[in-house]
């Protein structure tokens, strides 16, 4: 299963500056029949989901399965899932930039795009979940006649601030990195396309004085995005941890959520890169070694997530708290044995066991295994949020309150539609803007010398 282009991750691509431009600009060539068929199919699925949402808006939130005691269901699960997917994009682009991990260069643009699109997808879910979407602007602090402001002591308000800041900063960071590459694409285009690219890159010319500002600003972006990525999923975890629901009210949640977010995001980057490098014929730039490096990080995040799962059980058992024990260790109602036992085992096996297969070099260098395991990890990560949200809410303090949550067809349709929306955005991006950074790949290879070009 292993394929060629298996040079180690530290080895720069054997390309000149001109060849880098040629190969990456070639990815922007007009899409073929398969490309547009894929775009149309995804757009169709997305529209079916929009119809389901319209039906929910028209009839009311009762068409969703969320009801007492499960006031949070598929919408919040999927919101947390997509925010989590976003995280490894920032990890790869900002954290690995600060660590000077040069292997990030061929893959970081894809990861950043994934971040932006995942946050855009996530941002839809609170709007869907609130039901009366026309009142959604009440979430934001704005001057109003009633002199009322949102409660800034509430984690839900922090979440609004954190996720909107995260989207803004991720988008600016992503766009900032794109500017020199759009300029390079502009100079290899003609007609209307050239004009559009020129507007998008602000007429960038790459003067030394401009690069001087650019370099410093890029470092600042990486510096602020790094703590931001930790803060955002910590804040998302506080949506749960600040409440007193058993299974949620725990101090391990922030690092547990951040590790889980990076775990799922890394898996999604692998899922996206495998078709991208094949379709765009850039296997010599995004090599197996880069995917292998991502797989190795996935082993680490999988172990952290597994540790967090384990420690939850230990704390429940050690605390002597009967409500915590009901959620975790009770032989009838505990997560591994209770009504939702299947979701617990999907979560545990997909997130903790499958990534360990990457310990074998043959598995982590096999494209087919990488692709399958990366998808399984994301199935597991969606179920992680299902386990956290559903099991805790359905068995809270009073047995009289307990219930069993079943998602409705509307929720499932909107869930599927969110994937279509995400992949649609990604497909449109990959064909219209450089999905691999020309500037950073050039920094990996030797600068052009007069001797070689005079040949």
């Amino acid at each position, binding site marked *: 299963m292993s394929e060629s282009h298996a040079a180690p991750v530290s080895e720069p691509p054997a390309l000149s500056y001109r060849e880098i431009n040629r190969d990456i600009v070639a990815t922007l060539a007009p899409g073929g029949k398969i490309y547009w068929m894929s775009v149309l199919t995804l757009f169709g699925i997305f529209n079916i989901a929009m119809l389901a949402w319209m039906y929910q808006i028209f009839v009311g939130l009762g068409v969703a399965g969320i009801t007492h005691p499960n006031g949070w269901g598929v919408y919040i699960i999927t919101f947390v899932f997509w925010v989590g997917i976003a995280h490894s994009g920032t990890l790869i682009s900002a954290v690995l930039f600060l660590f000077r991990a040069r292997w990030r260069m061929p893959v970081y643009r894809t990861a950043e795009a994934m971040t932006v699109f995942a946050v855009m997808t996530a941002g839809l879910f609170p709007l869907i979940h609130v039901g009366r979407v026309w009142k959604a602007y009440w979430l934001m602090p704005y001057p109003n006649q009633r002199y*009322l*402001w949102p409660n*800034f002591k509430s984690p839900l308000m922090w979440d609004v601030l954190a996720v909107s800041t995260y989207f803004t900063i991720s988008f600016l960071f992503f766009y900032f990195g794109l500017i020199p590459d759009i300029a390079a694409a502009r*100079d290899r285009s003609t007609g209307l396309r050239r004009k559009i690219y020129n507007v998008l890159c*602000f007429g960038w010319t790459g003067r030394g004085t401009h690069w001087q500002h650019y370099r410093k600003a890029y470092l600042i972006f990486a510096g602020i995005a790094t703590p931001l990525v930790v803060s955002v999923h910590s804040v998302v975890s506080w949506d749960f941890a600040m409440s007193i629901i058993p299974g949620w009210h725990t101090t391990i949640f922030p690092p547990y959520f951040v590790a889980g977010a990076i775990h799922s995001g890394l898996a999604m980057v692998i899922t996206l890169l495998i078709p991208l490098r094949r379709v765009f014929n850039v296997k010599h730039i995004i090599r197996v070694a880069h995917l292998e490096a991502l797989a190795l990080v996935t082993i680490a995040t999988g172990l952290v997530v597994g540790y967090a799962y384990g420690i939850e059980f230990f704390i429940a058992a050690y605390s002597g708290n009967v409500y915590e024990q009901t959620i975790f260790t009770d032989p009838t109602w505990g997560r591994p044995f209770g009504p939702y036992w299947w979701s617990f085992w999907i979560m545990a096996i997909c997130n903790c066991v499958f990534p360990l297969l990457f310990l074998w070099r043959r598995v982590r260098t096999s494209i087919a295994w990488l692709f399958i395991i990366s998808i399984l990890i994301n199935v597991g990560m969606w179920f992680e949020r299902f386990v956290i949200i559903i099991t805790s809410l359905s068995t809270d303090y009073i047995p009289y309150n307990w219930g069993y949550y079943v998602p409705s067809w509307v929720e499932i349709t909107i869930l599927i539609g969110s994937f279509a929306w995400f992949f649609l955005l990604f497909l449109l991006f990959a064909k219209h803007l450089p999905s691999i950074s020309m500037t950073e790949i050039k920094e990996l290879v030797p600068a052009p010398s007069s001797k070689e070009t005079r040949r």
Partner: protein
Amino acid sequence: MTATISGVFAGRDGLLDAIETLKGKGHMALDVMMPVPDHEVLDALPIPPTPVNWLFSLAGGLFGVGLGFMFPAWAHGLSFVNEVVPASINGGGFGQITGGKPLVSWPPFFVPGFEMMVLFTGILTFLGVVVLCGLPQRHGDPHFDDRATEDHYVLIVTTAPESSAEVARILAAAGAEVK
């Protein structure tokens, strides 16, 4: 009166030689268009360090952290604000007591404080680069060459008109295509 001469270099070695020679002859108004932020070229160029970090990023961060702490405090009803500012414009002075906490409870405001700091640092940094680089350049740069975003370097020298022949000679000697 000044004259601007540019030379297009196919390689970095010739460019670095030309920069050193020009600096040696006292020509300090130099700039280079290049496809990557090349450290060696940037170090060789006599250009001042960027003020984007303290002029824009720091200012944005300080504004953001101030806003992130003070706005929630104001919205929750700062008592001293209520005494001096009419209730109609100070957030109403409703005094939203939540969870039995003090009206102005600083620990929860760390989150808006931090998020707003990051938000405004980012926005101001982006704007800073746009302003300092004079972007958007709607009509382009007369010395720009399409090859500068691929694998060539354009050295731009601003000098006195009487020195332009000398500059052109230095550029040509270093292997540049003089414009």
